[in-house]
């Protein structure tokens, strides 16, 4: 049972480095530039009309899926290019990997307001909103895929690499026959994770709206929001049903077949373990037409491509060996210009932040504390229920067989899609929004934990379990000496991802437009939303930066420490 378990690649460097400072400065500069641009954003943004009629649903489903597909395609290209460049070129790797490390721990959703405002200042608003949604999904999907590509490319077994060299494979042939196939399996697993995570951000982008600025997009997310807003339960059910159907269909018709296909790229030489199965893949691979297309089109095309590139690359390799290798002058100039721009932008951002009154900083500080509290509560509750349930599923085949598919379907529904429905149920209560925000965080994060706990529990060696039985340990001792230590690395991995998701959720959860009213609770997400609404760009910049720095710091200190403890002390070998 190996599902959705991946470990974020934390480099060995400790805490903060000067590089991190530069990267954060770059982010500040970028946000500042966005803020400046956003000054020209229209004060009123009219959202789309959302129809609750059932025939509109397939269209909305298509729109949502289309956004996901475009963003995923871009992520895929990005991860291959970036990962390959960082792995092949040492200098590039030294810049690109720390950058990626910071970017992956930044709460992506916090960029949404700035991106939306700045894009709508220069583009027609529907284009701006579409683009912002795609950028948002892209930035949520690309990092772990890129890490996966980088890790694969740098861990190609030595002898396979040497074989490529001794048989003089040109760079293209080497990429096609060695590096890409080697990276495929990890890339597919991470793509599935990214795709699942992408829904969360798509839904958030589709329903994003503050005050007079309605940035919503026609799609399933907006449909669900309008349905909940109007209290139309039939439409809510239809919307959720469509969403689940779309997700299950994509799983069956796209991801499962891809996973089954990718099994051939396993490096293990033994047949072992049951390979992933897919009825659709079996159907396709037996189909006459697929075989014909492969023979007549795909293979000749590849042959041509290989041949063309072989001649080109061989000629270039000869020319190359003449000249000295090293970063070309244009690259150096570009790097210097980029650094100068970063410094200038960072300085401007600092100026802007200095103008902010102390009271505003106080508000941001309190907001951060409030949001932190929610994240902690959500994570605690998630741990409390996922550990016993996950261990039960992970250690019992029977239970796993029954619950696994159910859990997978439930987990596939993005929490942000259900958020409007939560609001419908909770807003009437006192402190309802607070509760709804915590619930959104919980729903968005508990699955990472659950899947990791299941994976951890099922990885406990049978021998150790027998030994524990023979020792007749009491059930508490059993948990303390065997189960919890064995789970620890998995818990840490899950919790790192989960806490990142929870911080993200604060952006959409702490201030909402519902039933024609604005509801807000204390929190940094609410401050960012209010600043977006009021056009207070200094506050927006300060809030977003404060959130980013806080989350990155927590990752770099607390989680990194736990991760190290897990790696050094509780690893099973």
């Amino acid at each position, binding site marked *: 049972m190996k599902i959705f378990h991946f470990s974020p690649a934390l480099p060995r460097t400790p805490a903060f480095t000067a590089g991190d400072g530069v990267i954060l400065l770059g982010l500040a500069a970028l946000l500042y530039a966005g803020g400046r641009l956003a000054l020209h954003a229209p004060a009123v943004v009219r959202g789309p009309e959302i129809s609750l009629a059932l025939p509109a649903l397939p269209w909305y489903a298509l729109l949502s899926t289309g956004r996901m597909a475009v963003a995923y395609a871009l992520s895929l290209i990005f991860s291959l290019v970036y990962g390959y460049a960082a792995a092949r070129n040492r200098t590039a790797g030294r810049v690109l990997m720390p950058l990626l490390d910071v970017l992956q721990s930044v709460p992506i959703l916090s960029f949404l307001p700035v991106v939306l405002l700045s894009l709508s200042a220069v583009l027609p608003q529907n284009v701006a909103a579409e683009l912002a949604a795609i950028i948002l999904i892209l930035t949520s999907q690309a990092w772990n895929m890129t890490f996966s590509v980088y890790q694969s490319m740098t861990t190609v*077994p030595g*002898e*396979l690499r*040497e*074989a490529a*060299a*001794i*048989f*003089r*494979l*040109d760079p293209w*042939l080497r990429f096609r*026959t*060695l590096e890409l*196939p080697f990276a495929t399996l990890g890339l597919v697993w991470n793509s599935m994770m990214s795709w699942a995570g992408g829904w969360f951000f798509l839904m958030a982008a589709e329903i994003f709206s503050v005050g007079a600025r309605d940035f919503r997009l026609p799609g399933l997310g907006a449909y669900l929001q309008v349905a909940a807003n109007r209290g139309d339960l039939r439409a809510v059910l239809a919307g959720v049903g469509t969403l689940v159907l779309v997700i299950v269909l994509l799983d069956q018709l796209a991801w499962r077949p891809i996973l089954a296909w990718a099994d*051939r*790229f*396993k*490096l*293990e*030489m*033994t*047949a072992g373990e049951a390979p992933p199965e897919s009825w659709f893949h079996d159907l396709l691979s037996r189909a006459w037409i697929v075989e014909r297309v492969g023979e007549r089109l795909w293979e000749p095309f590849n*042959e041509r491509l*290989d*041949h063309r590139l*072989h*001649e080109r690359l*061989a000629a270039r390799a000869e020319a190359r*060996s003449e000249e000295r290798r090293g970063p070309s002058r244009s690259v150096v100039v570009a790097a210097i210009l980029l650094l100068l721009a970063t410094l200038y932008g960072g300085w401007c951002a600092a100026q802007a932040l200095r103008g902010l009154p102390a009271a505003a900083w106080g508000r941001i500080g309190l907001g951060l504390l409030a949001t932190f509290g929610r994240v902690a509560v959500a994570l605690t509750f998630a741990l409390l229920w996922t550990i016993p349930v996950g261990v039960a599923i992970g250690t019992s085949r029977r239970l796993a067989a029954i619950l696994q598919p159910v859990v997978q379907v439930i987990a596939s529904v993005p929490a942000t899609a259900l958020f409007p429905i939560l609001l419908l149920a909770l807003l009437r209560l006192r402190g309802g929004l607070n509760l709804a925000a915590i619930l959104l965080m919980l729903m968005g994060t508990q699955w990472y934990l659950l899947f990791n706990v299941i994976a951890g529990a099922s990885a406990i060696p049978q021998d150790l379990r027998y030994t524990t039985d023979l020792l007749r340990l009491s059930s508490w001792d059993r948990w303390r000496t065997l189960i919890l230590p064995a789970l620890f690395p998995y818990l840490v991995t899950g919790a790192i991802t989960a806490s990142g998701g929870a911080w993200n959720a604060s952006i959409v959860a702490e201030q909402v437009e519902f039933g024609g009213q604005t509801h807000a609770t204390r929190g940094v997400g609410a401050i960012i939303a209010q600043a977006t609404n009021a056009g207070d760009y200094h506050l927006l910049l300060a809030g977003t930066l404060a959130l980013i720095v806080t989350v990155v710091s927590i990752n770099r200190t607390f989680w990194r420490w736990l991760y190290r403890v897990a790696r*050094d*002390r509780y690893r099973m070998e």
Partner: protein
Amino acid sequence: MPETIVEKAPTPADAASLLVLRDVGKDYGTAGKKFVAVEKISLAVRPGEFVCLLGPSGCGKSTLLRIVAGLQATSSGTVLYRGRPLDGVNPYATIVFQTFALYPWLTVQENVEVALKAKGVPPGERHPRALKLIDTVGLDGFESAYPRELSGGMRQKVGFARAMAVEPELLCLDEPFSALDVLSAEALRGELMELWLNRSIPTKAILMVTHNIEEAVLMADRIVVMAKDPGRIVTEMPVALRHPRRRKDTAFQAIVDQVYAAVAGKPRAEAEALGVRPGQVGRIRRLPAARLNALAGLLEKLASEGGRQDLYRLSAELVMELDDMLPVVEAGEILGLATVQEGDLLLTPLGQAYADASILTRKELLAGRALRLPMISWIYETLQQDDDQRVAEEYFLDKLRPELAHLAEKELDIAISWGRHAELFAFDDDTDELYLEK
């Protein structure tokens, strides 16, 4: 068999040689002290020769093979192929790898074809050539199989077919049989020798790396014996037996014994054998990668054989590979518990006392002997001088790294395992500190 010790490059033979190495060295690490993989290697391979590089692990024989193939650059010296200096990957050579290095996602045929494709051979010509090669190695019928469906021996056949596809003049074999089971290895050796002796492949010379002495004597025309610390050639021995060679023959056994003696080496002067402490002038002698309880086992076995036994027979009886056996023997030597003479292992009086002693006395004896080793006594005294008698692992690594580079951690691990066994000092995994045993 006469031993010929080659000191310098064989100059007159150069012209006729396919491959000539002159004073080749390879080291790793940065400024300051470096780790030397191989040093002053001079070697020539002539057309028609099957040469074996033989030595314990860590003697740099695989590094040398990669230098010949052009996969690794040299740090010093020259590599001449057909009289011209080698620059980049050697276009006349190819390698058959220990782990086969097949692409698991390609079929047998595709694996062979990829070598041809890289040369720019068009598909029309490629397919029949690949099929013929697969046929030659006896794998017809398996063209469309994936490597994971094949046994180890069959996979290595694909490795050979792929290597022959590029029609190499010099075939480099990197322990090609050591990942196979005994029977497959024997069968494949026979098939390779048949192809080679009948001249059914266009290969002009074979250079094989191995740590299996019998294998070398079975196949090679000449055995180049290497030693480690630093990796170097100690001697070259021609094998003039006629093919097919039989293991049971007395002449065969005699050569095996001789090679064994050469590999196990001559006893060195004590100061050289023990080396110096980190920081002192001179060479640190790395501890052999052996477990001391394996040494106890070996000494007991030796005592039961009357205190003297043929190394080759000993390794056969203990079912130990040369690579596993030699570190244990070396541990016995530097602790003064055993010595090697003419291919035999001898128990010293101390070793005899050890074998007879109780567990407790053994520990004491071992502690005393181990403290004679500069590495162990350095760690021990450093810990004694500390107030808490605890010192961070990182302190020792820092001192070791300038001289041992990436091997520092491995070295310290061995030292800790020896220290633990002798109950001198131990390692606290929670704090990453070494501490004195009370």
